[in-house]
């Protein structure tokens, strides 16, 4: 079936959802299997409009749930096609079982997650509790801070995931509403350039290769299962970062836009730093610059660009000379320190010299993280750095009403 190319302006005004839809259109996906859910709904809505208007050749499957959506993606991917979908929150939670199937079967599916709080209470706004569910699921995970990143990281996600040395599914996450529904200028690639960057889909052990029939999704008990899981972990730990670096380099060569596994802002001579994800990275970077000018705090920001595989060694290089680090988790850990606190603590634990680390829980259910909040965190960090030890409780909540909440 023929399809039309779309002519894009050099800069389009797109929100994160539209950016994802266009990237999905441009890479010429074979099958999108989806069940729309706020705030990711417009991704598949836009995509199906492109399809109806003749700009897409592939199949669009409307299914009865997110579990079925990812199951459809798994079947289509095993059959030997380029496959993607999108979801949020409750949908992602329902999809969880199949995420492990996709990664265990080494199927290079791309999933756009538009972050949203998990009920109850029901809430459609952005926080990271949904994407935190996927941490151990064996997917590669890219985090976008704005619509431009969503657009660019989708191409990189397909390129890395589909590489035959990798063959692992990849998530591109963006903040619900703050990124997904906030229109900004996005620098575009023309259809041919975008498609050629990712390249033609190269099937591997596809079920539609009728001369070489294969069984996907087999059962392995105690004599094989462990080795399969160990190999999957090994490939995540050793094979993915070189391919991501390659893709980031190639993308920079093509567009001039540079991505890094760990993004750093004002970090060259920083003594204190905030580690965070999503839109908060940009807010924090602005505040760091202002506090440097106004209060002389040597503040920096570390943005997690790749959450999985976890950039342990790369982060060691970035944090080793810091005096104090704040880890900002936009998800209620429900009875523990936050994920970024635990994982950053793991990064520094065996260094000779390590920073004081504390943890902030913020922004649940779409609550704004303001520049005032971030400035307060930096002032805490300055006090910790000066004292050489924690001057605050290990974990604090910011931006929540009522008496100050702090633990540990």
């Amino acid at each position: 079936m023929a399809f039309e190319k779309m002519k894009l302006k050099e800069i389009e005004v797109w929100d994160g959802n539209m950016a994802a839809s266009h990237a999905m259109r441009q890479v010429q996906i074979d099958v999108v299997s989806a069940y729309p859910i706020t705030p990711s709904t417009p991704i598949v809505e836009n995509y199906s409009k492109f399809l109806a208007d003749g700009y897409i050749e592939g199949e669009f499957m409307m299914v009865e749930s997110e579990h079925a959506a990812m199951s459809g993606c798994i079947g289509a991917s095993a059959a030997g096609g380029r496959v993607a979908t999108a979801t949020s929150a409750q949908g992602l939670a329902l999809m969880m079982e199949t995420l492990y199937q996709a990664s265990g079967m080494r199927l290079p599916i791309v999933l756009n997650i538009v972050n949203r709080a998990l009920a109850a209470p029901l809430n459609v706004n952005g926080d990271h509790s949904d994407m935190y569910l996927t941490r151990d699921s064996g997917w590669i995970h890219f985090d976008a801070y704005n619509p431009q990143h969503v657009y660019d990281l989708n191409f990189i996600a397909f390129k890395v995931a589909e590489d035959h040395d990798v063959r692992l599914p990849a998530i591109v996450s963006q903040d619900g509403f703050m990124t997904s529904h906030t229109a900004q200028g996005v620098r575009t690639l023309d259809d041919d350039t975008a498609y050629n960057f990712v390249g033609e889909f190269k099937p591997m052990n596809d079920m539609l290769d009728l001369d070489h029939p294969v069984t996907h999704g087999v059962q392995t008990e105690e004599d094989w299962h462990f080795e399969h899981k160990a190999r999957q972990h090994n490939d995540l730990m050793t094979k993915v970062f070189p391919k991501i670096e390659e893709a980031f380099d190639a993308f920079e060569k093509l567009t001039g836009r540079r991505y890094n596994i760990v993004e750093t802002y004002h970090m060259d001579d920083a003594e204190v730093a905030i580690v965070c994800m999503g839109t908060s990275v940009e807010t924090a970077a602005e505040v760091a610059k202002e506090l440097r000018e106004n209060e002389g705090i040597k503040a920096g920001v570390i943005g997690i660009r790749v959450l999985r595989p976890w950039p342990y060694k790369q982060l060691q290089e970035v944090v080793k000379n810091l005096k104090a680090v704040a880890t900002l988790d936009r998800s209620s850990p429900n009875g523990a320190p936050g994920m970024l606190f635990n994982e950053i603590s793991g990064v520094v634990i065996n260094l000779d010299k390590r920073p004081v680390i504390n943890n902030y829980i913020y922004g649940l259910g779409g609550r704004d993280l303001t520049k005032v909040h971030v400035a307060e965190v930096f002032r805490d960090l300055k006090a910790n750095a000066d004292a050489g030890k924690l001057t605050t409780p290990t974990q604090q909540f910011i931006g929540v009403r009522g008496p100050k909440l702090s633990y540990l």
Partner: protein
Amino acid sequence: MSMENTGWDGFEIGAMLRSFDGPAKDIALTKQEDRNYSKNNSFTASVADWRIIKPVFNKDYCIDCQFCWVYCPDISIISRDKKMLGVDYDHCKGCGICVEVCPTNPKSLLMFPEQKDTEEAIAEWPEKEKKEK
């Protein structure tokens, strides 16, 4: 790729298993016994050890209608050139559908306990049922 000696450290990614050693050309026209099934294909494995009742085939009454072959959910009816040959006991789960669909009188397939000797079963075969008017 041959899976002949695939051990724990020889598998391919994704716990993907190959049905055949080498390409499978014209597989639909190749009889099962002539296909190059790999060791990982269940054709070469017994997957029927939980069966407690089994269909016994009595060729004296069979009209080779192929109903059992068509309806068997596990491809366990062995038929060649439209002649019914018997049951593949390495794969038959004992569901009894073949007996249910058998149109002859008496039936050419009947269920017996798993441990029943086939010759004994055939000796006990029922007579033709008279139609009641």
